[in-house]
């Protein structure tokens, strides 16, 4: 089983990924897709007069401050627009895709952060009513039920909290949790960079291979959001996922290229 996460950043075109999934499906290599949508969500938030607010945690992680209003924009863009247009495109390519969010059948369940600590304009602040959280449980039975029926899950990173509230979760961590739950052979994280770069943003400084026992040492190279991706990878490897690859979503056949080792391979 292969789990692929495609970031929702600017300039990400899902077409090559969809084509690849169709080919892999025909070669009896089902791929579970976890998608993003952050760029679209920013555009939509602006249009709806709910400007996105990104906050940075004390230890440097950035994420979207998701109050209830933002959560609904998130649901519309991720679970509505991006998810269903991906399903539409995959169906056109003969892939029997089923679009889900983590809310559906409690596919992704986690703890909602009651309060988070952020740093803003040099001040340390506590932020409440933030609908973000972790992914602690994956409903593998639902995934197997659909896979068994010949369907291919396409998942929006929206989860359900233990108190059954919709929460915004990190797509990479969600993909990692799914990869672990399915004991996936590969977790492929595609984004608009070729992989982990020694000197960001110099794309020629690509780190080609990281032995899985030394991942922590490479954390230093990870910038901002990339830190979370590497955290997710580390977790997945320690819990049985065969291989993690950070690769480029902008190349033709991005999934197959990653399967053949293009990008930063950790195993």
């Amino acid at each position: 089983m292969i789990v692929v996460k495609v970031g929702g950043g600017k300039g990400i075109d899902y077409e090559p990924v969809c084509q690849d999934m169709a080919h892999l499906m025909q070669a009896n290599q089902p791929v579970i897709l976890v998608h993003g949508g952050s760029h679209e969500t920013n555009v939509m938030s602006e249009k709806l007069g709910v400007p996105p607010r990104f906050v940075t945690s004390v230890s440097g992680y950035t994420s979207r401050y998701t109050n209830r209003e933002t959560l609904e924009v998130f649901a519309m863009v991720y679970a509505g627009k991006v998810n269903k247009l991906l399903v539409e495109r995959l169906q056109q390519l003969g892939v029997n895709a089923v679009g889900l969010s983590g809310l559906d059948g409690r596919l992704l369940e986690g703890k909602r952060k009651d309060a988070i600590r952020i740093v803003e304009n040099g001040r340390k602040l506590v932020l409440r009513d933030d609908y973000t959280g972790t992914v602690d449980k994956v409903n593998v039975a639902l995934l197997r039920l659909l896979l068994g029926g010949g369907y291919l899950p396409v998942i929006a990173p929206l989860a359900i909290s233990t108190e059954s509230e919709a929460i915004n979760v990190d797509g990479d961590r969600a993909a990692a949790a799914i990869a672990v739950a399915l004991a996936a052979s590969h977790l492929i994280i595609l984004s608009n960079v070729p992989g982990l770069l020694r000197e960001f943003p110099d794309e020629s400084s690509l780190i080609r291979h990281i032995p899985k026992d030394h991942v922590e040492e490479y954390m230093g190279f990870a910038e901002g959001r990339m830190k979370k991706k590497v955290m997710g990878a580390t977790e997945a490897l320690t819990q049985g996922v065969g291989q993690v690859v950070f690769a480029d979503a902008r190349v033709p056949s991005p999934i197959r290229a990653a399967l053949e080792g293009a990008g930063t391979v950790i195993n």
Partner: protein
Amino acid sequence: MATATVECPECGAELQLDEGSIKGEIISCSDCGVDLEIISVKPPKVELAPEEEEDWGE
């Protein structure tokens, strides 16, 4: 404006709230160093700040 003073819920020390402090800000007690959250400025009120939890949303 007289600076607002509060009592640290952990060690009982008396603390001055700086001029520009705002609701939700985290300050540490000058005596015992515990992290406190400013619940309100007028009237001045603090509580132990919630635990630091990592890893959040996209």
